[in-house]
């Protein structure tokens, strides 16, 4: 099995700070990390490899410092990694990102055919979850999103069975290989990487490709130029109207609260 995992470097949105005046990101406040869902994707690839044998390759698009997430992936269990990094990729939205990554995948495929592509459910900086299905369309393999378990994998018959998370429960889906999975965090627990992996990762020098290395590429589909969406204005989220204090007898207070909640009842989901 040759499994390719797409991994992205993202600012840690848990600690990110926004300058309230300019509505811009305080970069200093946000360390760059491996997108948490992608860590699970790498872990799952390593687990599949331990069952079927093979190679786990990671692929990332980003600035030069994104080699850090490839090294991190090697810690988790990847064998090797490629970073595509070029000014021409800058400013890409999900459409342009999936284009660039699919081109890199084609190049990787030339060296060794790819059986499975795994992405995270979404990247925590953009929260879109669009890149995975986008890649699948471009290289024409079926996407299966929101996977919570790889139940069966048969590399001889080229078949895989996975659980896909749904609104109320899950679906069991069978697919041909190659296919593309996007994974949820539930799919596995990230183990504590063994020391030899750590040493290997510390030494590992990822391969960096520029646009020119990718072969035939339509530059008009890359980066800002290739991105149909643009960010218009940024603004602070409307704050809850706030500050209504309800005093008095508990029974009365509750009555009033329930009345107020009545208007917000759509925040609760009632199921018949």
């Amino acid at each position, binding site marked *: 099995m040759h499994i390719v995992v797409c991994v992205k470097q993202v600012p840690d949105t848990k600690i990110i700070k926004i300058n309230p005046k300019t509505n811009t990101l305080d970069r200093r406040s946000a360390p760059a990390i491996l997108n948490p869902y992608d860590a699970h994707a790498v872990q799952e690839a390593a687990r599949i490899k331990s069952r079927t044998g093979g190679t786990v390759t990671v692929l990332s698009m980003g600035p030069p410092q994104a080699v850090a997430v490839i090294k991190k992936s090697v810690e988790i269990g990847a064998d090797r990694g490629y970073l595509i990094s070029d000014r021409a990729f800058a400013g890409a939205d999900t*459409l342009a990102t999936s284009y660039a990554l699919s081109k890199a995948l084609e190049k990787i495929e030339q060296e060794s055919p790819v059986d499975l592509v795994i992405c995270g459910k979404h990247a925590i900086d953009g929260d879109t979850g669009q890149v995975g299905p986008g890649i699948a369309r471009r290289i024409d393999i079926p996407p299966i999103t929101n996977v919570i378990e790889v139940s069966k994998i048969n590399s001889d018959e080229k078949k895989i069975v996975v659980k896909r*998370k749904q609104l109320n429960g899950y679906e069991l889906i069978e697919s041909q290989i190659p296919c593309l999975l996007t994974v949820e965090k539930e799919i596995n627990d990230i183990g504590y990487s063994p020391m030899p992996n750590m040493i290997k990762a510390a030494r590992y020098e990822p391969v960096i490709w520029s646009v020119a290395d990718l072969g035939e590429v339509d530059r008009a589909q890359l980066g800002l130029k290739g991105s149909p969406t643009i960010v218009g204005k940024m603004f602070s989220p409307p704050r809850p109207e706030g500050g*209504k204090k309800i005093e008095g007898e508990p029974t009365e207070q509750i009555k009033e609260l329930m009345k107020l909640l009545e208007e917000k009842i759509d925040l609760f989901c009632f199921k018949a």
Partner: protein
Amino acid sequence: MEENRGIWVFIEVTDGKVEGVSLELLGAGRKLADKLEVPLAGVLLGHDVRKISAKVIEYGADIVYMADHAVLELYRTEAFMKAVVAMAEKYKPEIFLYGATPNGKDLASAVATDLSTGLTADTTMLDVDPEKRLLEASRPAFGGNIMATILCKKHRPQMATVRPKVMKALEPDASRKGEVIEEEIHLEESEMRTKVLQIVKETTKTANLAEAHVIVAGGKGMGDKNGFMLIHELAKTIGATVGGTRDVVEAGWLPHDQQIGQTGETVTPKIYFAIGISGAIQHVVGMKNSELIIAINKDPDAPIFDVATYGLVGDAFEIVPQLIEKFKELIKEKGGEISYV
């Protein structure tokens, strides 16, 4: 681009029923359509879905584009994507909205790639500029700290997935008239590379903190581990996830991974109950972006009230039991249970 006209909404059907988010989108789409003076259409795919088209019209659509086919019985990206892309290429809508559900997001991503157009994910506010005919899709960015408006100026259709429960559905109106256009589609089961083997319904387990829609958090004000059980009880009643302050975690009333705040989890649920929590800044930074904050504290000057949407001043041990009763009544009234995805 000039030829693209009309607003489309993808109608998601599960077990023969339209998902709430699709009805909400018909409501939102209606407004956009009226502003642009174009028709609103629902895109209805499935097997034996004919009878549902009436409902789509009742909720605001002028047109229903329908594809009824055995291959579309259950959602599969490839089948749905092919049908939708064929329709969009034929009728050329200018705006196309999907619910931000697992299926809606999956489908929209694939369709956008094939149509080479822009797609905005997880939108929570929608508007349109009638002059430029530009969809203004706004969404939280960077972990909900900020809102960004995303535009797609040069490609059509302009597409967005929209979060469930943020738009309002219209009151259904059975007298509304609309047109149902049935599309021939050419799909063969044998060409499908994926198969749904089984669908398993699960009563949703309470989500983890980061993903929880409703959180009941308790603080030192609950007195002791025993008093803290009240927090668990309220959470259980309304299907919420339990969280707490660092003091509570340090006291051993809650495991560490349920601590909210600077050194714990950052959460952005729809509703956050802060009970017996003073509202120290280290706690508040972890929960202040919740949509609705309800605080219960006996100290009227507790800083938690500065961030609370509604603040109940009083003794948690008097208020919470009554609150639990009230919710139980409400749930009975609605006939069922509360759950969040």
